């Protein structure tokens, strides 16, 4: 026998040995391949593992992932702050309106019940004469908006035509001048369509301004002042201005003191 024949004989023997030893492993490998390549079979095998992990996550999600999720939410919130506000604001506004309306109703009910239990001669007489419900009078006292000062000012010069007030304020001529300067400044700086400055707001104070051809009327109001009240006051100022304009025929021949009395009667609550 040659040396080459010996080598081939050995190789065959080795192959035989491999077949004997690896036969089972090869069969298992083939089985694994067939599972991996077949989606149904793979799914059947993997499904219990995934389900079991889901169960684990259900039980342990917060402890396992809480930190990561919180970090991601924080990051996203910071990135989309403005968008979130845009989304939340309308709903928030509705919620606040509902809440305020509810609180006002509760307040009114509570006042009505206190009216039943407490008697005020002054309030009852006022209610009788004015026709306003006692509960409304109490609300008015509780949530007060007060007209503090009224000014009628020449539109161009800023000179004070007349004023009325329920308090001692600083020099009203100077206030009229500065108010006109501020009004002129705002209108000059932002005026695009010949509009007038209509309101200045600071803290709980509002200055309502109605401009007419040669003069304007500025009313300082303190306290809670609703949009409805503002509208009503605007209408009242307009009707006063119309009436006053008639008085002003003949160029301010009515005295400043006379106008001041009219202002007090119409606007200042003593």
């Amino acid at each position, binding site marked *: 026998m040659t040396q080459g024949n010996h080598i081939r004989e050995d190789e065959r023997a080795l192959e035989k040995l491999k077949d004997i030893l690896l036969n089972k492993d090869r069969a298992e490998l083939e089985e694994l391949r067939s599972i991996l390549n077949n989606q149904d079979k793979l799914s059947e095998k993997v499904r219990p593992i995934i389900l079991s992990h889901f169960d684990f996550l259900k039980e342990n999600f917060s402890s396992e992932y809480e930190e990561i999720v919180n970090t991601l939410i924080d990051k996203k919130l910071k990135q989309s702050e403005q968008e979130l506000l845009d989304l939340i604001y309308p709903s928030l506004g509705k919620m606040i309106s509902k809440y305020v309306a509810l609180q006002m109703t509760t307040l009114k009910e509570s006042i009505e019940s206190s009216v039943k239990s407490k008697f005020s001669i002054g309030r009852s007489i006022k209610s009788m004469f004015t026709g306003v419900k006692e509960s409304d009078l109490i609300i008015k006292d509780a949530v007060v908006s007060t007209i503090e000062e009224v000014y009628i000012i*020449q*539109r*161009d*010069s*800023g*000179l*004070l035509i007349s004023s009325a007030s329920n308090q001692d304020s*600083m*020099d009203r*001529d*100077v206030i009229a*001048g*500065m108010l*006109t*300067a*501020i009004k*002129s*400044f705002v*209108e*000059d*700086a932002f005026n695009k369509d010949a509009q007038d400055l209509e309101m200045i707001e600071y803290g709980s104070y509002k200055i309502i301004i109605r401009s007419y051809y040669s003069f304007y009327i500025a009313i300082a109001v303190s306290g809670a002042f609703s949009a409805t009240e503002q509208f009503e006051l605007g209408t009242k100022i307009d009707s006063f201005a119309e009436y006053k304009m008639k008085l002003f025929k003949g160029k301010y021949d009515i005295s400043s003191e006379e106008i001041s009395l009219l202002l007090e009667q119409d606007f200042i609550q003593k």
Partner: protein
Amino acid sequence: MISKKIILTGSFGVGKTSIFNQFIFQKFSDKYLTTIGVKVNKKTMNVKGQELSLLVWDIAGEVTQDKVPTSYFLGASGIIYVMDLSRPLTFDKAEEDTKYLKNLIPGAKLKLVGNKKDLLTESELAETVANIKLPIDSITSAKTGENILELFTSLAEDLI
């Protein structure tokens, strides 16, 4: 009582606010000048037996008057246009500025004022005044208060 609006104007740094402060006790802070460019205050005077309330608008200095919001000038009865006697550049613009103001508020009485007299010697003052083309109504020193009251009294008399 009669009330009149007076505007105090001119280039920046000519001493308008110093004149204002000399004439009127301060009520408003100067911060209004830098925020809205104007500060208003009042002085009551008795002129020829007539009580007169002067509402003085101290307008922040601009390079030229057309840079000031026109609404600040409207309704003014008197104008005090201030120049700095120590800075010729400030009276170079006076002719153009006063022409602009007279055109904007035709009825208003105008006083042309040379301020900071205290910074010049007698001879320098004479030479400076001679070089100014427009007739000066008043030469003042807001620092010492010289001629300030006289300036406002003279304007008030013109307004009655």
